[in-house]
Each structure stands twice: as C-alpha cells, then as structure tokens.
C-alpha cells in the first residue's frame, strides 16, 4: 500500500459542534478515493483541512510521510503546491476572463513571465477540457458545467499531484454530472493524478472510484473498495447505498 496522503485522528469543531471527531483515512497514490456521507457531516471540512484552508484542533495529516500540521509554514506551503482543489462552485475569479483565470496560477504561483508561453499553456488546457476558444469570456457568461471544467483547467495549470474535488457534480444535471465524472477519470488516467473527491452521488462514486470512505458522526465508519462496500454490515451505510440506487431506478423508469 503506497499512500500519498494520510489523515490520522483529526478533530475539528465549530463552536460546540464537533464536526470531525477522530477521522482517519489514507489515500493511495494514483487512485481515485471518494469520501461519501450525508450533507453536513464534515466532508468539506475534512478535505479543507487536508489543503490547509481550515486548521484542525488536533490530529495529524501526512503528505508523503511528512506531517504537515506541526510543520513550519514554509514546509506546509511547499507541500501544498502539490495539491490542487476544485471548489464546489468552481471559485473562478469573476473579475477576470477565463484566460486570466487560468493564467493566474502560472503568473502568481509559478512566476512565469513569457506571455506567449502562458497563452500557449492556457490554450492547451482549454483544449484538453474540451472548451477551446473561450479565452475572452467571463466566468459569469459560462454555465455551471463549463465553469467547473475551467476550474479543473486552472488547477491543472499548477500540475498538482493530488487533486481534491469538493462535490464536483452537485447542482449539475445528470448528463453534465456524467461528463464531469468522466473528466475526473481522465485527469486520473492521463496525468496519473491522485484524486480525492467528496460527494453524495453514490452511484457515480461506485462506478469511478477505486476506494471509498464513509464519513459518519465525524469519523470514517466504513471504508473499502466499491465491491467490498457493496455488501457492508454497517446499517446506515447500507441504507445510504440502497436508497440512492433505488432512487435512481425510479427516476430511470419515469424517463422512459
């Protein structure tokens, strides 16, 4: 087992509300790992702790055997350059064009100066996500799915080793959700990027991910490959899985 990121006994609370109470999970290199759980169970808090937007009260987060939470800030910053994060609403800078958005990490983080080179990279990224020629549009003019793709392009510009997806398909219609899921698989296969996603789209999760963790009561209560979780003993996870599959079937019947 070759884990690239490990989370150990992480605790985080807001006020008196204990969101994470001893969550531990490890993420394998080059794999797609999904964390599922009900809304408001702290899935976002968990991955925001991994990337450092939130600081847990206690616990350990390892990146390649290097503990980050107790490390000096410079080490944390260096480690976090290897991470990319796709926000739920893409978090594109709405005062900038698509081109400026994708160029932002190139200029500000990698300190590239050559305009032609930057432009070439932006064009290449846009072609890769299947949206060529939208350089001069503003994020507000794009649809939710397109914004998400541009968000992926922006995070890919930094060539991360690990990409975190915060509810990548929430709020998208089934067809778009499908295309975003395909994009996640493509990112994983083509660039060999470790993908970590949090979601409550159970069906898609079972299809695309290599490993699944079930977050409940602030802890990872069950984990395993999709096959092994299919016949889990955990009562709530069972209900969670069966409900989402039944729901989809009903939807499918209605369509036809």
């Amino acid at each position, binding site marked *: 087992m070759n884990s690239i990121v490990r989370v150990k006994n992480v605790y985080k609370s807001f006020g008196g509300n204990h969101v994470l109470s001893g969550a531990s999970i490890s993420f394998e290199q080059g794999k797609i790992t999904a964390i599922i759980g009900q809304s408001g169970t702290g899935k976002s808090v968990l991955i925001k702790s991994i990337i*450092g937007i939130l600081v847990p009260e206690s616990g350990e987060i390892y990146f390649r055997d290097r503990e980050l939470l107790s490390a000096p800030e410079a080490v944390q910053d260096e480690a976090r350059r290897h991470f990319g994060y796709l926000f739920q609403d893409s978090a594109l800078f709405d005062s900038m064009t698509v081109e400026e958005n994708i160029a932002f990490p190139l200029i500000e983080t990698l300190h590239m100066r050559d305009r032609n080179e930057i432009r070439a990279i932006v064009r290449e990224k846009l072609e890769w996500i299947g949206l060529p020629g939208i350089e001069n549009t503003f994020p507000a003019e794009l649809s939710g799915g397109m914004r998400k793709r541009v968000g992926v392009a922006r995070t890919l510009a*930094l060539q991360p080793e690990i990409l975190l997806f915060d509810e990548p398909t929430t709020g998208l219609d089934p067809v778009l959700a499908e295309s975003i899921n395909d994009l996640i698989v493509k990112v994983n296969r083509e660039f060999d990027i470790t993908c970590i996603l949090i979601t409550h789209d159970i069906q898609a999760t079972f299809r695309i991910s290599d490993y699944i963790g079930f977050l409940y009561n602030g802890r990872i209560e069950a984990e395993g490959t999709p096959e092994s979780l299919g016949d889990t003993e955990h009562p709530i996870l069972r209900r969670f899985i069966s409900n989402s599959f039944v729901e989809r079937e009903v939807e499918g019947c209605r369509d036809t």
Partner: protein
Amino acid sequence: MNQLPLVALIEELGRFFAFTARVFVGIFRRPYRARLFAEQAERIGVRSVPIIALSSLAIGMIFSLQVTWLMAMFRAETMVGATVGMTLARELAPVITSLMLIAKNGSAMTAELGTMRVTEQIDAMETMSVDPVQYLVAPRLVASVVVFPVLTAMANVIGLAGSYLVSVRMMGVDPGGFFDQLYWFVDPVDVLSGLIKASVMGLMMTIICGYFGFYSEKGAKGVGESATRAVVTSSVGILVADYVMADIMLKILY
C-alpha cells in the same frame, strides 16, 4: 455559539490587528504588483474626480454663502477667503473627500472582497499559494494612501473657486481683499496638515473596509451587513481620528 460579548469583542479586535499586520507585511514583501496598484489608483482616484469636484465646489459655495452673510455683520467680508481657505485646507477638504470615497469606494471594496470570500475565491487564492491579503488589500492600501491627498488637494482648489464664485462674483466681496486675506492667513502648513490627514484616512478606510469584506459572513445578507458595518465604522473612525490628528497637529506643526 454562546460567548461573552467582551470575549467576542477582544477576539474581533485581535483578528483586526492581525489583519492589519498582514496588510503591512504584504506591502513590503515581494512580489510588488504595480499593475494592481495602477488599477486601484484609477478606480479610487481618477474615477472619483467628478464626485469630489462636485462636492467640494458645493461645500465651498455653501460655506461662503453663510460666512459672507455672517462676516457682513462685522464689516469684515474680505475675511471670507481666509476663513473658507483655512477651514477647507485643515478640515473640510480631507473630511469631505474621505467621506465621499468611503461611500463610493469603501463600500464597493467591502462588497467585492465579501463576495470573493463567500464564493470561495479568497480560499482559491490560498490554495494556489497566493496570499490574498497581499494580492487584494495591499494594492488598495497603497493606492488609497497616495490618492486621498491628491484628491484632497484638488478639493482645496475647487472649494476655493466655489467660494470665490459666491462671495466675490455673486455677493460683491472685494476680490483684492479676498485674496489678500487668503494669502495672509493660510499657510502651506495648513494645507500640509490636511494632506497628511487625508493619507491617514485613506489608510483607515482601506484597512477597515478591507477587514469587513475579508471576514464577511456567508450569503448576500452577510455581505450587505459587512458593507454597512464597514461604512459606519470607517466614517465614525475617520471623524474620531480627525479630532485626534487636529489636536496633535495644532501642537506640533504650529
């Protein structure tokens, strides 16, 4: 979350001073972003020229109208130039300029940063190892500190022009006396103290409005409340600071 109000206040103050420190560190640390500074100087400065010109002209005219009427009782109408000139230079020009800019740019600053906070754009910057305080607030601060005194200087001149228009052209004050008293009573030091005040007020506006935007609560309501609090706090703040600075400057400059 139930907390004692005093604890909450201390926590907020601590966060405010930590934010202020981050802004100042951000100004002096590389990379310097000249393009962002120019952009902000244009937004806060160049595009504010009409509104500042209009308000300072109005203040100069209204003030002269009242003062000429008052001075006429003592047969001292020629003192209008000196009175208006000195008050403008020392107090009115910086205060009016700052209040106008708080209403026009401070509120916008809070709303913009607040929206960026709420839509996670600020978090996104952090994940890309870009310090959002340095990227967003530092250029605004430098721009404000430079632009506020420039606009104040302009307000001085236009306010005096308004004063001349009303008292000399419309109310028949002798122009020779008007300028004679103006030169006699108003020192460069009066103008200087006004410009220093304007700079400090620009600094206060950016830090206060930037702070409220940066730590805005979630949602449209949160951003709106932040903007209101930012405008109220910075307006009251500059008035208090104005009194304190006036007191200090009267002691050390004269």
